[in-house]
């Protein structure tokens, strides 16, 4: 199994989830992160003190998939998350040694 980790723009989550649900992938884990990269943050001003934020709010989406599904899912995620503007994010893939479903104790692909 593989773990796909996607750093995306927050308002793209809906598109990503919709894309995945079409191929019947209905599980994921999402968290709020701050991204630092080429994309610049916005300017904030408080009583005349002005500064540029360097972190941009992003979402981190983690999806466990079977090896066979990897390519298709990656493709879908990347396509759904794309706006073609700077800061669209990254997707990386990690190999998993094991996966268990807590409720049942099922292991491996059955646990997805």
């Amino acid at each position, binding site marked *: 199994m593989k773990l796909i980790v996607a750093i995306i723009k927050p308002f793209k989550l809906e598109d990503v989830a919709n894309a995945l649900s079409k191929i019947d992938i209905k599980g994921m884990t999402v968290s709020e992160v701050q991204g630092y990269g080429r994309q610049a943050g916005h*300017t904030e001003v408080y009583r005349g003190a002005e500064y*540029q934020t*360097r972190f941009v709010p992003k979402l981190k989406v983690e999806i466990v998939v079977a090896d066979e599904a990897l390519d298709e899912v990656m493709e879908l995620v990347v396509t759904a998350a794309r706006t073609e503007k700077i800061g669209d994010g990254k997707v990386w893939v990690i190999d998993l040694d094991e996966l268990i479903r807590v409720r049942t104790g099922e292991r491996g692909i059955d646990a997805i």
Partner: protein
Amino acid sequence: MNFNSGDTAWVLIAGALVIFMTPGLAFFYGGMVRSKNVLAMLMQNFVVMGIVSVLWVFVTYSLAFGVDLGGFGVIGTLHFFGLGHITQAVPGYSGPLTQHIPPLVFVIFQMSFAIITPAIITGSSADRLAFGPFVVFIILWSILVYAPVAHWVFSPNGWLFKLKVEDFAGGNVVEINSGAAGVALAIVIGKRRGWPHKPMAPHSVPLALLGGGILWFGWFGFNAGSALAANTLAAHAFINTNTAGACGMLSWLVFERLRGGKSTTLGAVSGAVAGLVAITPSCGFVDIFGASAIGLIAGLVCAYAITLKFKAGVDDALDVGGVHLVGGIVGTLLIGVVGTSAVSGINGILYGGSALLLLHQLIAVLACGLYSFSMTWLIAKTIDKTMGLRISQEQENEGMDTSLHAESAYEFGSSILEAFK
């Protein structure tokens, strides 16, 4: 002049209470929008305080309460420009109560109404109204809509006043006026991206309830202050206000249960506001039974009315129409039904009064509602065609706080942003 210090004290503090309602409204609204737009919402309400305060003392007080222009009862002159001639009594008033409080105190008290009325409108266009155009809108609206409507109803020389329309504390001038304007503005500006299928949950219900608590508190100034004296009539207005707010809350909660859902805190406070809106015109004319009825009916009717926007496809974001327009109509008309001379000399049909009163009330509702709606539509449309009324899609996505005002409302988990920007 020998003014009554007790009455003066009461109207002064009532004015302060009503001015405090505008920040209250800001929090009520601000709590209901998403966290990326809360500052923009607060900003609009605070800026209304800035703009209308200045307009009022220079221009709009005089237009509303000044010597009538041409005797048509339509608008006042600039006689009181910059508070000139302000030791004179309000034109048209006579009798013993005329000068029991300094005229300047009346200016203050009425100012508080002139401020909150356009502030109420900001709820309908929440999350998408651009800031510059908003400023222009408020100026035009105050002059072209608020001042004339206040003249019609509140000035003794106004045509609706002379028709003997009853509006104790602004059911027409404040509630229907702002409510109709809110609907018009929502129509012109269009829906928020994603509405209605995308959830746009309140970002802080406690903030909304804080606003609701301040509103309830301030409403005693609004309504009981409208007696312009610390007397039994003020006490009637006070207790009716409280009772109707309470009844509105309870019936809205019952409505939620009857529809099969849970009773919600936002429902509780919305129902209270609905009851308070409806009792605004009527609080000086009804007894406790009338007030209870008005509150109960307003809670039910408004709870139902806010669902109509989904059917109509009008994104009145924070239900200015459903609560203020509808609640204002309910309260204005019901004076003609449950008004009782036991409180102040007017009988509704239930107490043997003539149906003429109800007719007059209906005329006022229609006149104020339609004038406000169409004039607001015109103003909004004009601004939209010239400056553009609405923020860009990108600004809407990003949120108004950072994109319009270069501020973020909250930095709780400040470690990241604080360490390094």
